[in-house]
């Protein structure tokens, strides 16, 4: 549902979406290269992209429709900046294989889901640095949960914003979009929180957002 499909948005919005997405992918790859070898990240990237790809198949019935998981927050926390290109690849596969979203809107959809991932990464990293705590797993889990929830809320707001550019006739769709995603925000908060708490315990080096902090 946060995937906008072809033939809805206006051409300037689509074009702007592509420009921003291509720029952000380039920055992410450059950043990732500067920070170290991307080679070591490839398996993690692939697994996370696969998780993102299939997460959209987990439907939860809400009212007359069904909404699905997004997992932007988890992508950001675990992959860091590289979440952006990973989400782009995931969306390409979802568009071609599942018909979620569309081809021309890939730029816009990547912004809608990728930028919240980057924000979640920022929140998670800053939160863990700023808040001192005895139990890293508990703290990281809570901050992760918060970041995961915020990421979904952001993704929904971005999508709503894109639809808002269309003007009249979409008010109802925007309301429905926001309303139906409240359960997803709650569910993802729980999922991201527990996955992060678990990973911090068993394999903290997997989490890019911890940035060198040892568990």
């Amino acid at each position: 549902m946060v995937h906008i499909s072809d033939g809805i948005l206006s051409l300037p919005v689509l074009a702007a979406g592509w420009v921003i997405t291509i720029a952000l992918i380039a920055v992410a790859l450059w950043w990732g290269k500067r920070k170290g070898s991307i080679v070591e990240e490839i398996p993690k990237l692939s697994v996370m992209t696969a998780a993102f790809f299939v997460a959209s198949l987990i439907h939860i019935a809400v009212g007359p429709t069904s909404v699905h998981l997004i997992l932007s927050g988890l992508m950001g926390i675990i992959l860091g900046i590289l979440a952006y290109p990973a989400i782009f690849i995931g969306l390409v596969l979802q568009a071609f294989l599942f018909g979620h979203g569309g081809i021309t809107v890939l730029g816009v959809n990547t912004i809608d889901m990728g930028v919240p991932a980057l924000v979640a990464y920022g929140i998670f990293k800053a939160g863990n640095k700023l808040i001192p705590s005895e139990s890293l797993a508990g703290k990281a889990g809570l901050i992760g949960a918060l970041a995961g929830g915020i990421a979904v809320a952001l993704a929904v707001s971005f999508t709503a914003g894109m639809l808002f550019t269309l003007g009249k006739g979409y008010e109802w769709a925007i309301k429905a979009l926001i309303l139906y995603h409240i359960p997803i925000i709650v569910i993802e908060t729980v999922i991201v929180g527990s996955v992060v708490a678990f990973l911090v315990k068993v394999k903290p080096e997997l989490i890019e957002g911890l940035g060198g902090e040892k568990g």
Partner: protein
Amino acid sequence: MKGKLVFGILAVLLVLSCLSISGVSAHRLHIVHKISEIEIEAYFGGNVACRDADVKVYDKDGNLYVEGKTDDEGKFSFPPKIGVDSYTVVVDAVHMPGHKAEAVINLSQETAGTSAGGMGTEMPLYTRTIAGFGYLIGLAGAAMLYMSWKLKKK
């Protein structure tokens, strides 16, 4: 007296023959025709019916033919137009702005069997999921190959 009898017999024969004519016509075979509806069904991946979605049916020249909404089972029916055998059906799940689908129904090519089966000509979901994983493994492999080639060059 004799003439009256002959006349009477003729009259009875006439009545009988009239009865027999109407008897034959009672066996006349009538054909009336009614063109029934083309039914489409819209559903999301995972077999969730797409309810209350806007449906627009276009003929092969792209003119809007009928429009309506899907019912609780995600179904929508429309009568075909005489002489038009190809329709493009566009389903737009308005309450889920990301979901829109299009299908072409061709009456002259489709057999009754496949049309009864609905528009579901796509691959089953699990094959598409596996395909997605395949692409990802391939991409990861290609990326690693490129990186190792770069490392070797150094």
